[in-house]
């Protein structure tokens, strides 16, 4: 059971990384235009030809 001493912190750290990524994505306005993202998937990558 001593493995738990490593596993639990690892799980928590991974969870926190996910949460951090989510908060970062929200702070950088990635959720402000939900419909736009669905449409942009159809665009070519290099808009500047």
């Amino acid at each position, binding site marked *: *059971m001593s493995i*738990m001493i490593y596993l*639990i912190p690892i*799980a*928590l750290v991974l*969870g*926190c990384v*996910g*949460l951090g990524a*989510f*908060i970062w994505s*929200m702070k950088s306005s990635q*959720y*402000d*235009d*939900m*419909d*736009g993202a669905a*449409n*942009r*998937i*159809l*665009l*070519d990558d290099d*808009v*500047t*030809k």
Partner: protein
Amino acid sequence: MSTATAHIQPQNLNQNDVQNDDYRSLVKDNEKGQHSLSLLVGGVHCAMCIQKIESCLVQQPKVSEARLNFSTGRLNIVWNGATEQANDFVSNVRSLGYTVTPYNPDAEKNSMENENRFLLMCLGVSGFAMGNIMLLSVGLWTTTAETMGYATRELLHAISGLIAIPAVIFAGRPFFNSALAVLRKGQTNMDVPISLGLILACAMSVFETIRGAEHTYFDSAVMLMFFLLIGRYMDFRARKSARSAASDLIQSLSGFATIVENGKPRRILIRDLREGMQILVSAGESFPADSVIEAGESTIDTSLITGETLPRAVHVGDVVYAGTINQSAPLTLRVSKAAEDSLLADVVRLMEKAEQGQAKYVRLADRVSKLYTPVVHILALSAFILWWGFLGAAWQDALMIAVTVLIVTCPCALGLAVPVVQVLASGVLMKRGVLVKSGDALERLAVIDTILFDKTGTLTVGKPQLINDVIPENLQLAASLATHSKHPLSVALANAYQGELLTLSDVKEVSGKGLEAQYQGQPVKLGSRSWIGVENASQSNDLEIWLSVGGQSPVPFHFKDQLKQDARETVSQLQNHGLNVTLLSGDRQNVADVIAREVGITSVFAEQTPIDKYNQLEQIKSAGHKVLMVGDGLNDAPVLAAADVSMAPGTAIDMAQNAADIVFMGDKLSPVSYTHQIAKLTQILVKQNFAISIIYNFIAVPAAFCGIITPMLAALAMSGSSLIVIANSFRLRRYK
């Protein structure tokens, strides 16, 4: 600038002088010394629009970023060059065929956006907490303490608590805030038992962790919170689109207008327009304020105000309203009302008022919880007092029994009773092309007794269609000429012909009159009766245009706005269900009467302005009727927002779609009656669900009260009742 004398003839004005909008004043500087400009772009519909606009802008010199928000239509441009470039960007976007209006992001410190972020943040945090606690709980629920060791179990409980408590404190705020707000007003809603359930489940789990007991309930608390937050977020998104309707409309009042001052034209912001100013409006521009025509003749598109698609001819002395569009020739006008007093501004105010009114609707779930919450809390309290005071139990045991009573009655099944059915019903309707935008729309739809229909675009197709037979050669020639114009009748004529088009030379559009061209050496004209010179031909009630080729006698084309195929059938179905059907139209009385007779509606209100429509609705509502409004134009928007529930066809303008609770696709009217049927069925299922939850409580509460249910059993029983409620709701899927 042009140096004209006191009275300017609009025709003599150079377009370049007039179009000199100054967007430089809207440019902002950011920390890095770059300029940024925010604009509201209209007419963005698909991915190609995003690409066209963005790629056009980033190709401009020194532009570092151009980003279009598809949901809101806001375009943000960042560049390093001179501020003067701002005007070039605007004309670039305009030249692609989109409308541009200035947008000031500071003017609107958007509370909706903040709430959106707040809810998302709560959702993210509770999702994180739920995932991690579940990880630990799998271990806890699949093994016994003997296997894993007591210390390990206590450790897992403690870690769960350390994750759950901050998460509940942070992400439970939407419920806590709402519960506190209603409690302060001395009322209660569903958030009160939810908040109490969350707090008690956590508090009891902390207590259990400390005394090293077998079970804690951090996982159920956090999971309940996560699921409830998902529902909360979905509901918020629906409300957000409705709320943005009015602010979009205000933005359309925020462009520039050309005024004549001391004989010189000048562009000013629309909001600075005052009564008595002289303004110039070129062809294609919309009128910035309610005003009276002083010089010029033109046709105007009044669809924004009246919902009618056909242009109306206007002359000196006529009143035009802000938001309508000048179609054919430049006009000089005198402002009769400042922008904020215009009819359009009145419509905006009505919509805002109507949307506030909607907030007063009490959902069924909240009405149930109003009865339920006090009863439950009094029961729990009396259980504690009874066991501790009279039966001599230790206070810990008495408290445990009281908490069990609360958990057993935890509003899981009650909380699920409504949303599960609504989500399933929305899914069933979605497959039929009906989008239900607000959670309680179906609930409100089920109880209506009156339906108000708009005419043009709702009962009818909304576009004129060719109704007479014409010999193919004439149709081909007329359609070939008609493709050169955007006039609604020309468009209808062009649509009526499917074959190959002829090549014509010297095509000219004579504004307000028609089109002329040369074909095989002969002059061809397509236009109004008087212009073609056939005033004496027999009159008809239908819309018409005439074609004349060389010396041959002119040929008429008749058009009519046709009823939707199933309009008659749908109206009679709705009437058979005992609903009052009324027609509410901005069109003339005789036209409205004809349509009403054709579909079988007896109650007709014609020649209604948007404000009349709104007042009409208020009257019907105050007589105690529950009203469904079906409409598609801006003139219907206040009524759509104020009606108990509203539907708009997918062809409606954005504003109407935003204001409506339900949007139906396709060119049929039958979704109205189908959706009404589903809504009624939904309400039956919701009531059954409430009955199930109440029966469950009837059995479980006395048992918990007597102390024969352990918290573990309570948790199991709770899930059981939730499952039954969900299973019952799924019966909706069997309805065809």
